[in-house]
């Protein structure tokens, strides 16, 4: 049974058109992460939440925002997608902030046309 669910698996959006990716978890974990992964590269941390505390990476573009309305759900909003934002977006959860493994969803493959 999937524990971290990302929807949709594949998303095509137009250049400049806002898009939202979603992630839900059934693990009741406190920490949720969003990563961007481009082809043949490692996942790059965009931001993470510890409960409601939001932590933004310094090099995450302003174009990317996140919301976590409750423990189970987290959203990645891309306000004006550019061609360079095409990537796999991975959501992960962890029980604690540090010292525990993270569980990943299957990712959302974003294409920008």
């Amino acid at each position, binding site marked *: 049974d999937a524990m971290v669910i990302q929807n949709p698996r594949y998303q095509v959006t137009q250049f400049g058109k806002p898009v939202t990716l979603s992630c839900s978890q059934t693990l009741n974990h406190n920490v949720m992460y969003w990563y961007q992964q481009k082809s043949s590269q490692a996942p790059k941390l965009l931001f993470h939440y510890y409960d409601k505390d939001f932590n933004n990476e310094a090099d995450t573009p302003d174009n990317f925002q996140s919301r976590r309305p409750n423990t189970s759900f987290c959203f990645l909003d891309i306000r004006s997608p550019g061609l360079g934002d095409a990537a796999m977006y991975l959501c992960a959860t962890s029980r604690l902030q540090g010292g525990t*493994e993270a569980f990943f969803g*299957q990712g959302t493959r974003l294409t920008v046309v």
Partner: protein
Amino acid sequence: GESVGLHLPTLSVQEGDNSIINCAYSNSASDYFIWYKQESGKGPQFIIDIRSNMDKRQGQRVTVLLNKTVKHLSLQIAATQPGDSAVYFCAEELNDMRFGAGTRLTVKP
């Protein structure tokens, strides 16, 4: 800033041989490390972890070694199988989780 990195981008082994995948980290404060396996089109999957107060940890067919003196982490896979073909990432977790560059393992029949 400090980050986790890998020595080799690709590794090709014969089925049945042992594989060793290496990782270097630079943050001496890191206290928890994880190896993940990622198959094409899927999210990373946990393989094994190790805390900084340990030097070695074994799982089923996998062993992780941690050398804090030289800030080096390795993943050993015994009797490598075709199903082990994937990209392997080490990750460092302190207050968040960061990945190294990854090694693509190819197992030849």
